């Protein structure tokens, strides 16, 4: 199972990195989203994998998983939403101001026609 999770994190990172290196804004935002999935998962599994032991105190429970990475990741998820929103609006703004959606704001004929 650990191998599978590691693979999932790896694939998400690879996809995120590839998209983040694209030249247009939208794929970069998608790439950042994938990267934030990868990072959140990575942080989360720092508490190691455990099944059926949520960190909710009750008399019936025998064990609990590590709550700390979960608390960290919970806010990270919300903050990544804020970041995604900011970046995508920045992309829209840059298109409105510059007339194209290239990350470097380059004025290129093919970008405008695309």
């Amino acid at each position, binding site marked *: *199972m*650990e*191998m599978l*999770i*590691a693979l*999932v*994190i*790896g*694939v*998400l*990172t*690879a*996809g995120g*990195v*590839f998209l983040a*290196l*694209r030249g*247009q804004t*939208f*794929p970069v935002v*998608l790439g950042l*989203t*994938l990267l934030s*999935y990868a990072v959140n*998962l*990575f942080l*989360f*599994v720092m508490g*190691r*994998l*455990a*099944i059926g032991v949520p*960190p909710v*105190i009750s008399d019936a429970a025998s064990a609990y998983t*590590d*709550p*700390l990475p*979960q*608390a960290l990741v*919970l806010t990270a*998820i*919300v*903050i990544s*939403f*804020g970041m*995604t*929103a*900011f970046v*995508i*609006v*920045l*992309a*829209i*703004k840059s*298109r*409105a101001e510059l007339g194209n*959606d290239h*990350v*470097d704001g380059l004025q290129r004929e*093919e970008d405008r026609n695309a």
Partner: protein
Amino acid sequence: MTLFFAVLTPFVGAALVALVSRLGRSHSAWAAGAVTLASLLWLAPSWHLPFAGSLLVQQHDWMPALGLNLAFRLDGLGLLFAGLILGIGLLIVLYARYYLSERDSMGRFYSYLMLFMGSMLGIVLSENLIQLLIFWELTSLSSFLLISYWQHREEAREGARMALAVTGLGGFAMLGGFLLLGHIVGSYELSDVFASGDLIREHPLYLPSLLLILLGVFTKSAQFPFHFWLPHAMAAPTPVSAYLHSATMVKAGVFLLARLYPALSGTPEWFWLVSGTGLATLLLGAYVALFKHDLKGLLAYSTLSHLGLITLLFGLSTPLAAVAGVFHIINHATFKASLFMAAGIIDHEAGTRDMRRLHGLWAFMPYTATLAMVAAAAMAGVPLLNGFLSKEMFFAEAMEVSEYLLGGWLLPALVTLAGALAVAYSIRFIHDVFFNGAPVDLPHTPHEPPRWMKVPVEVLVVLCLVVGIAPTLTVAPLLAVAAQGTLQAPLPEYHLALWHGFNPALFMSLIALAGGALIYRARRPLTAWHERTLDRLDARVVYNALLDGLVGASRFVTRLIDTGSLQRQVFLLLAAALVLGVAPWLAGGAALAGSRTGLPLDPVSFVAAATLIVATLATVWLHRQRFVALVTIGVVGLVVSLIFIKFSAPDLALTQLSVEVVTIVLLLLALYFLPQQAASEREPARAWRDGAIALLAGGGTAALAWAVLTRPYDTIAGYYLENSVPGGGGSNVVNVILVDFRGYDTLGEITVLALAGLGIVAMLQGMKLPAPSRDDTGRVWDADAHPTIMATLTRILLPLALLVAVFILLRGHNQPGGGFIAGLITSVALIVQYLANGAQWTHQRMVSAPSPQMGEGANAEPKPVYDSHPLIAWGLAVAAFTGLGSWLFGYPYLTSTYGHLRWPVVGEFELASAMAFDFGVFLVVVGATLMILVNLGGLHHALPKHREKH
């Protein structure tokens, strides 16, 4: 605490003064006066202490773990300076009230002035050197604000920048000097430093530390060759010049000379560096002042010259010279402040400061002229005025010391020359301006200023006179304690009197007076000669060359690092990360997998993971078909939330799920304004290169995750699990961590979210976008904007969704849920209304604030919901004030408390104060999310509906 409050009062007052200025122009002046008086009152209980020979030191814990204390001391020197700062400050407050015109913002001026006053007080009352330095830097910053007060003038901005650059650089050097000093002594407390004078002077680090500290002193006090900033700082309003260049800013440098005199003085290095610099500045300032045509320029250079005189006196290192230095500090503050004020009055009433045009003002303003003449005579060192007394002492000391050096006559000759120059420029100030023919082409007809504008000048001029006539009855006790505070030793024998008999100093004075008159008579050929030769030399040229060089160098470095292309930048960043990440693996050779036994693989997990991987690859592969990519990335997000739920993280799963919905809605909205299809890669080679990097990054991360997951670890989770119920009153440990244990972090995080929302609104303001009426394939958008079935269903869903949100919010402390998740669910429920029914429909039905919990919202003006600023503000306020509540009970910020309540139907119900905090989180999340999405949607709404594009 009294000294601390005396220093704190002006800082608090700065805000108060700015607030009060809304009530009217005079209010901030009154408030500033009151603040200054309040600060004086805080000092009042301790005034008598230095006179009684006792030292007041007050220590307060600040950062005890780092050994940093807030430490204040009041000795004679501190008392003298505090008196000057506050006393002259009070006069400046009064003067500025009449000086500033209708167009100038009073609140801003007085606010800056109070900041500066507080910083100066902090310097002179500090016991700790590091603390002193903090206030020192604060004076640099606040003087920057004051000098650049008239921001619309270029010379004001340039002058302020120059002052900040020079004094800031000096402050930085001084920090180094203080650190060395602290290292030598083993303490930053002044008492310890004074006690280790011999240790310091014999230490090998003495010279470096002395050089660094002197660099700070000389830049602040505008000593040669750092003098050039001071004349340029004259672009400030005259009250500022009068304050900064008489009693405060530039005196901070000589204050520090006096302050560290017991610890650093008495060595040849000190003697040559300090007195040499002082002498050079004394002569240079006096010489240039003679040729300045600007009234304030003349005063600026004369200030340089007098500061040089004081520096020279401290450099001489004899106790009597130090006494004379302190005396001249007092005298210079009084006559120079009044002269600056007089110059301001002339400028104000005549409309110019050019001495080639100002002539014969005696006929228009005889009263002001009289005041200015007395002050100028004090500056020249005419008997019966205070300047004469300290100048006599100065000449006497120069004679005293000259026996040991330079053939015995050079130093007395040079200081007499400086004295003569001072007499000459003082005569010029008086004769040119008030006599010497008729005014030339003045903008206004000059007249006497308002009554109260003259009062500060009168007070200071009277002081010049009474000190000059009867020093023993007036200034003697204050001078004695201040000199004692400087020397930190018994005072030498000295005698303040007008008449000391026929001694060399008297003859030097007489020569200076006569010589000054002669120099003034010969001013025309001298000026012509000066303008042909030395006037061309300007230290500012060197400064500008240095500055340009620095800017050029930093541009060069920036260009090396920042290529201006985000793509290349990200590439370099990733490549660097890869190299740094891979290098230890290659070098270390540790086994990849650890010893921890893993969980068995089950088929469901395998299928889920495979789905995620396929969806990720599809997103990457199809990213040019943007709608498809959006669907596949949605699948990825859903599987991620499945992973969370599988591995015992129900809170994360709920959060991820609701964030996913909001994110996809957001990206869909955004896609409306962006190209829906993208052209294929223009450089296939780049795709291959990026692919390789992506594979390496992915492989590296996977390997790292694998290596961590197969190793056992220690965790601090035990503490949280044990204390969650007894300490936080909640059984959902994740939520308790968020709202209680790490509540402060959460407060920061919701603030970030709020700021992101505000930033987005700011970006969207006034934005104009082409609104496509058809998509890329030619299909019309919005054929049926609000399908009936969807609209009807969402209306039924809304109350249910809100109910779920409330449920999730309330149970969050004990069961999976909480403010973040409830906020997201509420946002989704509301957003769906917008999507299904349109913005206008939704706004009409949500006239009050969207959350029924807000009592204030109900009777407020009907507002469209997308103005969710109040919601965010309330949320932050609730969260912050919940934390403050614990202060009332004597607990640290954000300490939680809880109790049990019985609710009908629901049963026993636990109420923790942390839940109020969580409610704040909820409000912020709803507010920020709605603000982002609805504003983005509103862009579309604001555009014309049917616009065909060809």
